[in-house]
């Protein structure tokens, strides 16, 4: 018995010591500023937002035009895949009355009490904008958030569908809470993006956004 137990005890004492070593997390130092910084009379107001776990899944309604439902689903999937801990989930709904975010074709209308209009130049084939409106208290975002994606050329023209897809993914990034544009051309959140998918910097930024306390919350439906 002793012949077996001594080496076994030593082996497991070794394992217990090794077990102190942890997995090492990667750096997110490559993230860019995602918050909206607006000058006010007294300085700078910081607007930041992310969906809380109780808001999930975020409900998107997409106009049935120019493959928008498909592009929205694709955009949701791409952003969902960036998160490790279930921070964000989205779903496409069929009833716009239940939606947290409405995605339509067309140019964003003028007017409204906007905290920001996040316009994006995009590729020359299309353009997009996300309107985030505050409630009267100034502390909540009004539902629904509205996203506009508009083709500049006739549907079916070369590059229009690809442009609509990446623009939708970019605008969904704004609906997540990335209220600013990346300064890096390789990021989907660059103001005039040239890539179709979120980058490692986009991922780090989204992760930081979702682990930083927000200054805004969504209003109760």
């Amino acid at each position: 018995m002793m012949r077996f137990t001594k080496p076994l005890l030593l082996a497991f004492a070794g394992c217990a010591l090794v077990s102190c070593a942890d997995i090492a997390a990667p750096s997110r130092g490559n993230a860019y500023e995602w918050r909206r910084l607006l000058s006010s009379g007294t300085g700078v107001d910081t607007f930041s937002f992310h969906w809380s776990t109780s808001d999930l899944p975020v409900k998107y309604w997409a106009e049935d035009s120019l493959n928008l439902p498909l592009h929205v689903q694709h955009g949701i999937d791409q952003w969902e895949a960036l998160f490790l801990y279930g921070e964000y989930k989205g779903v496409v709904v069929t009833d716009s009355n239940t939606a947290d975010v409405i995605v339509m074709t067309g140019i964003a209308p003028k007017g409204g009490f906007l905290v920001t209009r996040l316009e994006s130049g995009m590729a020359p084939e299309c353009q997009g904008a996300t309107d985030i409106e505050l409630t009267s208290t100034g502390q909540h975002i009004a539902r629904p958030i509205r996203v506009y994606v508009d083709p500049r050329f006739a549907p079916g023209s070369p590059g229009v569908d690809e442009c609509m897809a990446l623009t939708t993914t970019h605008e969904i990034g704004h609906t997540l809470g990335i209220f600013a544009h990346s300064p890096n051309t390789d990021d989907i959140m660059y103001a005039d993006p040239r890539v179709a998918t979120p980058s490692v910097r986009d991922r780090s930024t989204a992760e930081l956004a979702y682990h930083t306390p927000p200054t805004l919350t969504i209003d109760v439906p």
Partner: protein
Amino acid sequence: MTGYPSAAILACMRTILAGLIIAATVSPRALQAQVDYNARLGLTWASTLVRDDIIEEVEVRQNLAPTLALGASLPIAPLYRAGLEVMLTSSGYHASEAGTSTDLGTINTGSITLGLNGPVSGRLSWRAGAGLLGYWPKEEEGIFLQGGTTRFLAGIGLDYHASVSSRWDIIGSLRYDYHRFSTEELEARGFSQTQGVQRISATVGIARGTR
């Protein structure tokens, strides 16, 4: 971990398991009579799977997991037996950060270990083994976005037998095992090293054995 070495070990274990099953079913009575079997149910606790640092510390852990364990062994020396043990668990897992917890879905695990056991005193016996542990998430997302993972595993334990008839015992078992955890998705994101994971299971069941 899922390449050639683990495949070879799995193949070897399958052969031994098949040998035990065949020995138990078609072998001469003398050999069949020497095979011990047991089936147990219980719970498994596991330590942190992933520790991340995004502003605040984030920890991923499995919930207390219902466990099914199956074992079989053959004598190899007057006091010692060699055998295989399979343990299956299924539970939720969650991420915790600054006092809040997020449910991440369901994860199933299965381990197969080849081990030795021998007497401690009276009805108490020890077991030590090594093998493989597989993680199979119900949904491929988050840390399992690129699928589950297979890890090497080593463990020790104690079994207590209480006889209820000439052939059947009630068996109570405690197991401790240890492995290093990571996934392809974590590695792809730049997580370096692996997380030491300790598991403790307590199970109760029946054993049909030799005296």
